[in-house]
């Protein structure tokens, strides 16, 4: 789900090593989860999954996430269609409980390429994590 990174397999392998030594090891799949995907940023790493697991076109769904990194004060969840340059027609409501949270009321109202954006803010700074998915 994470955006492919430039640099090819060699760099990817090197990165994987660095990550394995650092935060990646500190951000395992949350307990009790079977699916889900991981997005790594500079400050935070997030695990997220949608409910239902296959995101429907034109119907409401929710997202659960778990963050690793410094304490998060506020998380906003957005959707964006980069090819069409528009977002969602609904504003999801996020409940944050420590480093875990739920966003209710998302809807991807068209087929095509969508980004799921997590805007995270905390005392350590702010960062946007981006996952990408294609709906048919």
């Amino acid at each position, binding site marked *: 789900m994470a955006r492919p990174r430039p640099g090819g397999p060699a760099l990817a392998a090197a990165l994987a090593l660095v990550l394995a030594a650092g935060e990646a090891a500190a951000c395992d799949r949350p307990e009790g989860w079977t699916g889900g995907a991981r997005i790594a940023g500079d400050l935070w790493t997030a695990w997220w999954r949608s409910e239902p697991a296959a995101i429907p*076109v*034109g119907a*409401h769904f929710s997202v659960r996430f778990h963050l690793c990194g410094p304490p998060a004060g506020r998380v906003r969840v957005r959707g964006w269609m980069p*090819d*069409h*340059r*528009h977002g*969602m*027609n*609904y*504003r*999801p*409501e996020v409940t944050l409980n420590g480093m875990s949270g739920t966003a*209710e*009321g998302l*809807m991807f*109202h*068209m*087929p*095509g390429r969508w980004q799921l954006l997590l805007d995270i803010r905390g005392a350590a700074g702010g960062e946007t994590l981006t996952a990408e998915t294609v709906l*048919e």
Partner: protein
Amino acid sequence: MLSGIAAPAAALDFTAGEQRRILRHGPWPPASRPDPSNRASGEPAAIAFGRALFFEPRLSVSGRVSCATCHRPDRAWTDGLPQSRGQRAVDRNAPALFNLRFNRWFGWDGAQDSLWAQNLRPLLDRREMGIGPGGAARLVRSDRQLSCGYRRAFGEAPGADDERIFVDLGKALAAFLETRVTGRTPFDDFRDALARGDAAGQARYPAAAKRGLRLFVGRGNCAFCHFGPAFTNSEFADAGVPHFIGPGRVDPGRHGGIRKLRRSRYTLLGRFNDDAGRSTAAGTRYVRLRQSNFGEFRVPGLRNAALTAPYMHAGSLATLADVALHYSTLDEERLHAGGERILRRLDLSARERADLVAFLETLTETAPRHGFVGKSGAVQCR
């Protein structure tokens, strides 16, 4: 493109990607269940009562306008006019009343979040019928047939609470209108033949319609908005249709719709929702108002579109050929002012526009079900 010469047979074999997109427009009809926000949904007695109400002119102040004045069963449930006339003129086109049970929003601006709430709007609007809660409740209480129909539908005699009776009329009308689902079309037969891998079945679908379908799911980008079995994603978009109503007046479209929704007493978040769990209210709860909602209108479904001219929210386009020309010659500069880039000026040839129309015409039900519906809903009350 394909203009001029006949397309080689191979050009009409859809790619795997095209086939997947085509299959998303079925199967038809889709599964459906009663509306949990309406305790009368699916109830035969309520359906019969709703049918009687639909043809009842006494629900208008003048005693001369019924729902069927603007939604004529013999005209595919619309009136054939660019903009409707009830007691006075209104500034929008009357939509055909079928496949409503699959909608999330109602009205061109989505100012209503349920079918029953939508049905109350003409009863409140003086230009349409305007009888209001008090007048409607008095009529139902005083008329033997109507009060009997009410009792059969809701299991109790009409009580003293005018507004409750009023909302229940919207719910009985909804129970009736939910039964209006369009029939199978040549497109559905083609789509199902594709799903089965039935070559003979696919061959029966006209070549022009196949070319139009390819444009629809491909270069035309139509299926981004006209998505799924009903050919609508049930959301809103700016399709580049002018929305001036008169000198200095514009129809705000979805922007006005969300604001009306938020002021309304009759929403899924209000006390008239029969579903205590509010299980269908997510759209109302999370909907978001933005500047770009100005000039957006609901994406209409396209089934039976060939029967429902004229087109667009104010009936500004007379024929499907005009619609194809509209998308072909869009003013991109105006359209992209809001930043969104889905629609492009397509510059279709005359042949391609005809193909698009040929495809849209195959969305017409083969055995007409839109026709006349008996007016008598009173029989059960003798």
